């Protein structure tokens, strides 16, 4: 487990069942002669491993038979290998697979990110109720533990699947890919992904969604976008939630909006209240518009239109 943020691996559960992420790391061991090697699987064998060092098959140790033919005693041959590969390239590959699959099926996927307690789940419940079956909606819920949120969503009648990340602090594209496969959302539908409540880590992990939507509630600080710029920069839309509480708070809306736009000048903002439904007309219109565009793109692709580009929605390329 990471002592910095507490994230870890191997504890991921989808609806209480361990996710199928086999540890592909080879078993590495060191022999008495100091040679180290790795097996992809365990097996029994009765030969010695001494030849690993010399690679001449004689069983002798010879460190001078490598490409450089160096004979310095005790020195193995070291060389630099150029890699130039993004650290997140594995996640990004899974994300592109998810994105391609979602586009092919006309599914409009939204990744909702915020601090814990900003009202994400309440907002989702209210959104599903307000859509009232006019747009089929499925939900992927991400939390470290419990299936409480998925149960709250299911109570609305919508299908939902819970991912428990264990000690993980964010959803990644592979987890979401697994969840999409199990959830199997219908074509031309809306998929809402509620990320783990965390304003830091989920910013870096593309899940294959069409947009990240950041939720900031008025019970938080106005300067949160400045404190956590990566998340607000990665988002295309910000929902300012709980505005029904404004009369009781000293929250300065203008200051919060200025902070958000300073971090991300392209950010769209909608002010909402999941309790009263204020601002929901605009929010639902935004969702319907995106869903309709995804549906149109699928239909065009199905008809083999050559003018349609299967790329990501051009909408709002975040700075960088």
């Amino acid at each position: 487990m990471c002592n910095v943020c507490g994230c870890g691996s191997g504890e991921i559960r989808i609806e209480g069942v361990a996710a199928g992420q086999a540890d592909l790391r080879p078993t590495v061991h060191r022999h008495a002669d100091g040679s180290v090697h790795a097996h992809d699987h365990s097996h029994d064998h009765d030969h010695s491993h001494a030849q690993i060092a010399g690679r001449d098959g004689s069983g002798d140790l010879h460190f001078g038979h490598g490409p450089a033919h160096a004979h310095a005693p005790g020195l193995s041959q070291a060389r630099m290998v150029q890699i130039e590969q993004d650290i997140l390239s594995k996640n990004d590959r899974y994300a592109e697979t998810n994105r391609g699959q979602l586009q092919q099926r006309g599914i409009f996927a939204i990744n909702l990110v915020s601090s814990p307690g900003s009202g994400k789940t309440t907002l989702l419940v209210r959104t599903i109720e307000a859509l009232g079956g006019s747009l089929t909606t499925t939900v992927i819920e991400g939390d470290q533990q419990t299936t409480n949120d998925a149960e709250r969503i299911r109570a609305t009648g919508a299908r939902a699947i819970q991912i428990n990340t264990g000690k993980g602090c964010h959803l990644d594209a592979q987890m979401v890919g697994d969840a999409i496969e199990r959830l199997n959302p219908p074509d031309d539908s809306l998929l809402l992904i509620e990320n783990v409540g965390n304003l830091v880590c989920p910013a870096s992990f593309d899940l294959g969604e069409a947009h990240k939507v950041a939720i900031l509630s008025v019970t938080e600080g106005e300067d949160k976008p400045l404190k956590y710029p990566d998340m607000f920069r990665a988002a295309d839309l910000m929902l300012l939630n709980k505005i029904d509480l404004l009369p009781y708070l000293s929250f300065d809306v203008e200051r919060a909006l200025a902070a958000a736009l300073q971090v991300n000048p392209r950010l769209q903002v909608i002010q909402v209240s999941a309790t009263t439904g204020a601002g929901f007309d605009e929010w639902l219109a935004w969702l319907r518009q995106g869903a309709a565009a995804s549906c149109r793109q699928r239909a065009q692709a199905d008809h083999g239109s050559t003018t349609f580009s299967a790329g990501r929605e051009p909408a709002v390329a975040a700075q960088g």
Partner: protein
Amino acid sequence: MHEMSLAEGVLQIVEDTAKREGARRVSLVVLEIGKLSTVVPEALSFCFEAVTRGSVAEGARLEWVELPGQAYCMQCEQAVPLEAVYDPCPQCGSGQLQLIQGNEMRVKEMQIEQ
């Protein structure tokens, strides 16, 4: 931060490369980290040590090259240095900037022993 996941990403790339190159041991891994990226190299270094235990990269040194932030300013029509992602252009104060460098999180190269 999510440095543990990133460290696992680094290890995956290192292990794949080590296997492809027939490496017996990995002694050095060099990263390129943009100054404006979402990673704290010191924290990543700490996690790297933890995740490489028992792997081909156990005990490997982790070094990183910091790439400074740079953006193209639409107003100035030129590349300008950038200290933070939400900073305005240091020359004209405009916010119309397109990031060109500083977001990198890459494994640049590694030293292997065969």
